[in-house]
């Protein structure tokens, strides 16, 4: 990724839109933050590096009525496609600046690698990350500190764009490998799985960052987790309530989740929420031969049906 080229492209687009959303340096060397540029000077702050972890497409539906340009990586572009499939944005209101991506960092993984020592600087060179703390300097291959989605990325190139900045890249690993972690988890017994989720989801503090960050969680303010009428869930700090909420979050994303990883990234309690959604998506592919966020002309599988389903069979009772 090249910041100069990106800024140039963004400046060219700027006069024809109300805002260009990109990313700029955040409060410390390890963080980038979303940047809403309305003036050419703002665009000068844009960066293009593996620090750009945010899925900026998430902001599009909330900017309804505005002309918006947005900088997207390959995975983020699937969010844009999914919005179009579901009619959540109007194509003519959105200018997509696509950036092919060779991977981003996971802030949590980087910190873990340096035992959470305060970071003094971080730099990137040919997919190697150099991290300096007050005690040491480490050179780490990017993919070792990247979120899971990057290690098996099938869509490094934006699937939809008006402007493309940078050279197209090859997918990493096989499409099959994307779900290896899910298959591995499924070798555990039912009891082990239940125990695992009770413990892991038990950490949830019900901050709803996972929900609010999710571009495709469309209910937001009417979420079952908070409505009092109907009163689906109590406000108790109770494992059952957390389990219900997360199962429903995943189910509502069935055949809609583009695996952008935001839910998992934003969780302060480091709960592997992406797993739930990946499991369901795996089924969507097997049952309905559907992958979310690929083709704007398609309809998500839960929006449609076939009178004779190809893969669903009657379940026998034993």
């Amino acid at each position: 990724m090249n910041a100069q080229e990106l800024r140039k492209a963004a400046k060219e687009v700027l006069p024809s839109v109300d805002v260009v959303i990109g990313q700029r340096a955040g409060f410390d060397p390890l963080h980038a933050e979303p940047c809403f540029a309305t003036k050419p000077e703002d665009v000068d702050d844009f960066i293009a590096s593996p620090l750009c972890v945010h899925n900026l497409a998430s902001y599009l539906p909330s900017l309804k009525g505005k002309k918006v340009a947005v900088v997207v990586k390959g995975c983020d572009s699937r969010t844009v496609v999914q919005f179009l499939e579901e009619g959540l944005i109007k194509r003519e209101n959105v200018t997509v600046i696509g950036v092919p991506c060779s991977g981003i960092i996971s802030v949590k993984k980087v910190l873990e690698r340096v035992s959470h020592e305060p970071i003094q600087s971080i730099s990137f060179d040919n997919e190697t990350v150099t991290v300096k703390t007050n005690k040491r300097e480490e050179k780490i291959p990017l993919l070792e500190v990247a979120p899971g989605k990057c290690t098996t990325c099938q869509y490094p190139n934006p699937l939809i764009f008006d402007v493309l900045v940078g050279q197209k890249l090859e997918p990493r690993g096989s499409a099959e490998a994307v779900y290896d972690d899910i298959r591995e988890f499924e070798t555990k017994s039912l009891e082990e799985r239940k125990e695992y989720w009770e413990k892991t989801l038990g950490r949830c503090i019900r901050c709803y960052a996972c929900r609010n960050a999710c571009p495709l969680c469309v209910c937001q303010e009417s979420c079952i987790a908070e409505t009092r009428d109907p009163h689906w869930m109590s406000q108790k700090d109770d494992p059952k309530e957390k389990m219900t909420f997360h199962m429903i979050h995943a189910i509502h994303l069935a055949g809609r989740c583009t695996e952008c990883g935001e839910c998992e990234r934003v969780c302060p309690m480091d709960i592997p929420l992406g797993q739930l959604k990946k499991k369901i998506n795996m089924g969507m592919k097997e049952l309905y031969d559907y992958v979310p966020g690929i083709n704007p002309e398609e309809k998500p599988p839960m929006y449609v049906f076939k009178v004779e389903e190809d893969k669903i069979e009657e379940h026998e009772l034993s």
Partner: protein
Amino acid sequence: MTDKGYLPQDKWEPFIESLSNDFRVYAPCEEDGVITFQVLEKGKKVDLSRPSTSAPKGVMFPQSERLFSFDFKKAPESPDKMAVELDASTNMPETVIIGARPCDAKGFLTYDRVYLEVDPYYRERREKTTVVGFCCNGPFAGCFCTSAGGGLAEKEGSDLFVTEVDNGYFLEAITEKGKKLLGRPMVEDGASHADAASKKQEQASKALQKVIPGDPEPRISREAFESDAFWDEVSAKCLSCGVCTYLCPTCYCFNITDEARLEGGERVRSWDACMFHHFTLEASGHNPRGRKAMRLKQRVGHKFLYYVDKYGTIACSGCGRCIRHCPVSVEISGIVARLTEGAQEDQKAAEARS
């Protein structure tokens, strides 16, 4: 009784273990890479190497607590009558919090001013809890305690204050409660380590420069605070989630709900957050803080203006959690720095010059 104690390295763990016999002990424990305050039990890994993800506030102000339970009872002889039984009994054990950072400990003082007099649930917990604070060795990303009237060696809020020195731990009683812990087995006399400890504390206090002007605390300019454009700008990226408020050691808003079943239920108090849309949603459907800009303004305003009006000090201990863990890096210290009176004058001067 002395007010200075010392524990050699090898007595530290046995000491905490022995506390567990008489108290419910909360300590920062690591699980799957996340540190939270948990009740100390066998198999838990205490981790004091960095600030916990969530503040220990849940010990004093739980995420959800039963205020009372109610049961509807029908009398068999007159089924048209319904009796309600209430149970508001509480049972809070004597508690010790180990490993609170200075900013965590100071956070409790923010709650005290609001709840101690008027809230029996809070008061009971507070009175039964001893806070053991730890001197910080150095700041972490986002920390700005020194700009919030505190510091890495700030003792206010702790009952007992611990400084790592001379291959062990120097213990300083700040209150009577803290003194009591010094009387426990294994604690040695600490007088000979006092100098080393105060040197260490002095060093620590200098390890973090102020990032917001104002001594000891920042003062926000009201005029700047009222600018809508400012809040629109700084809140554009905000997700209206509960990360900042729920991890914060000084945020104390709550909701009260009746979680009822057919035959009874509980009145529950649970954390709530001014950053949520629902927080101010009225029954009519109107929401006086319907936009996220208004909500972020409220969060900052509450901490740096309204609370100051009422209690004379800010409601933020500069722990940096809301910065570190915010999904989109909203930086409260940066926001406040831009709103301080000094910053405003500087800006005006700059504008006048140009």
